[in-house]
């Protein structure tokens, strides 16, 4: 579903992504961990086609992103760190708008169904987004992915700034999507959430993928030690 083949991005002499090889299959959640500037967001930008790679290729649903920028977007949903919707539109209207420009025509009951599935309380459906918390906005983002019937979900720090309850709810939603066969790539700093939701975890530093694990093969403390060691904070590792 998501493949990067020696994906490289350079700005002048600076290499921000160095020969990244990733493979996220159907029903997998791949968490990319790393400090700021590690190359996580660059990877997502390349998969979204927002920037062009210096070399290598990115594939979504077996289609080259650079060659098929519009078609690949039909299969993917994206939730940025701060999901900003139209504040003067309601949750239903925002969902209708983004589904509509994504090519899906949905009835009012379908729209409300997706919002409910994403965990939004029914009383919030017809409220304007300007009154929503970040957690509620993220749920609308998940509803957009559900409504779009996305095969691929790209998440850039989606739980940053969420309270533990909202973060937990978000994790549960990701599991729901996983059960539907969605391939998810999530960039995050949150080791705990990564361990909680991921099927696979990768640690990036300076644009390189330094380590990869199956989430089930590693404990949280091992993950933390591995992360700190990779980042060069050996003195902090237990």
């Amino acid at each position, binding site marked *: 579903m998501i493949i990067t083949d020696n994906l490289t991005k350079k700005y002048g002499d600076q290499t921000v992504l160095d020969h990244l090889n990733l493979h996220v299959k159907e029903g997998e959640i791949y968490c990319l961990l790393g400090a700021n500037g590690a190359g996580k967001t660059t990877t997502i930008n390349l998969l979204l086609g*927002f920037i062009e790679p210096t070399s290598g290729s990115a594939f979504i649903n077996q289609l080259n992103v650079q060659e098929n920028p519009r078609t690949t*977007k039909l299969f993917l949903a994206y939730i940025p760190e701060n999901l900003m919707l139209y504040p*003067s*539109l309601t949750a239903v209207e925002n969902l*209708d*708008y*983004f589904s509509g420009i994504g090519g899906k025509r949905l009835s009012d009951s379908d729209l409300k169904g997706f919002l409910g599935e994403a965990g939004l309380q029914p009383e919030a459906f017809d409220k304007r987004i300007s009154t929503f918390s970040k957690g509620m906005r993220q749920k609308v983002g998940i509803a957009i992915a559900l409504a779009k019937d996305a095969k691929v979900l790209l998440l850039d720090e989606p739980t940053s700034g969420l309270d533990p309850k909202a973060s937990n709810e978000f994790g549960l939603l990701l599991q729901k999507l996983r059960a539907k066969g969605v391939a998810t790539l999530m960039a995050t700093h949150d080791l705990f959430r990564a361990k909680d939701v991921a099927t696979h975890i990768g640690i990036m530093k300076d644009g390189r993928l330094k380590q990869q694990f199956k989430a089930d093969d590693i404990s949280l403390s091992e993950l933390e030690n591995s992360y700190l060691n990779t980042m060069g904070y050996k003195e902090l590792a237990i």
Partner: protein
Amino acid sequence: MLTYNFRYELKLLLRSRWIQLLSLMLLVLFGFSAFNGQQKVEKRRSDIAEAHLEMRENDAMMLMLLDSVEHGLEVSVPYWTIPSSPMALGNYYPRVAAMEPQPMAFLSTGQADLFTHYVKPTVSGDDFALNFTEMTSPVQLLFGSFDLAFVIVYLLPLLIIAFSYNVLSAERENGSIRLLAAQPITIQEWVMQKLGLRFFWMALLVTVTLILAFLLIGMDIVAQATSFLSFLALVLAYMLFWFALAFLINLQAGSSAKNAVALLGLWVVFVLFVPSVVNQLGNTFYPMPSRTLMINEMRSLKEEVAKKQDEILDNFLRDHPEYALNDTTQSRGFYHRYMASQRLIREELSPAVNAYEEQLQKQQDWIGRFKWISPAILAQESLNEMAGTSTENYEDFRKQVIAFAETWRGHLTPFLYNNRDFSQKDYPNLPKFIYQKSQASTWSGLAIILVLSGLVYLIGIFIYKRQKERNILTTF
């Protein structure tokens, strides 16, 4: 996708109160300016009607006097004003040569503030050939007239700028651009649709508010359907140009503040700077001869010819033997000499008058050559033309009046040299002035504005393709 943008753009505009605010502003601006223009037209119409009324009253008096004279009765007016004398009639009972306002005159004051709308050419006067201006308030000249043309050419672009400067930058600044860009639509398409829809809604508001404003001032839109539609087409084309500029600037990935400054800068260039520079250069390259010098020249020429009027009259009669042959009395008085000398003065002055007219023509040609640089000039000129208040319209009126004055003089001169009295039966044959408006087309202005809009749009696409989408999506 267009249907979703269409539906939600309207919702967003309504909820942000843009539609309501725009409707109100447009209605107030169009209503007030149309009313203002209509007031000026009414004043002009009533001035002309008053002049015609005065002429009719004078004519009634003239016919009574002629009747008395023809019946050998004494009349109680100075002898030099008795209308049986063709020169008295030609000087004291002139016709009104009026430029009636056109049906759409309220659109634009144009040159109407500067030039007179009616004159009364006499047989001996010739100042009208040179002096066609009215006394005008300098304050009004400084600030211009608050008419529809002013609102459309100057203020409407500012409303469009306020309505469109941040279509893309607002999405970037509130963070929704990345979510939008993750949908199967390009940013260029999205901006175009968004601006296209804003153009559509604004065009609708402009059309509705213009119709309301026109109805308020009592214009019969159905009767003037063709004029109204060509006016509307011009306004919409002019709006399209400003939306095309907004498209170009929006795609440059600047902040909202930067976009606003850039668009206001372009407003200054196209609306203020270019028209001013084109006019200034026209004045510099083709300066108009001084009217004062020309009037002084005319006065000294008159003094000179007055000294040798007998000689001039002899020469004149040699050139026009028909006058000498038809008159058995052969008596010659003041007016015989005066009219002969006037002809000489006109001939002597014609190089100066021609130089003035040629220079004016050169100035207009110069402006005509460069007016396509600024849609504001094109729109203003087209509106003046529709209103019948353009420089060309007044120049045309001046020429028609000069021609009429010649006809007036030519009609009465034979009476003078044949020493024939003017009588009641000659009255119906007096020449009448009817102003003929030249039929200049306003479609060329509209076509050029459309071409310029297309050009700006293509430049926007070209620059956008060069800078690539990434700058827009990764800057924030």
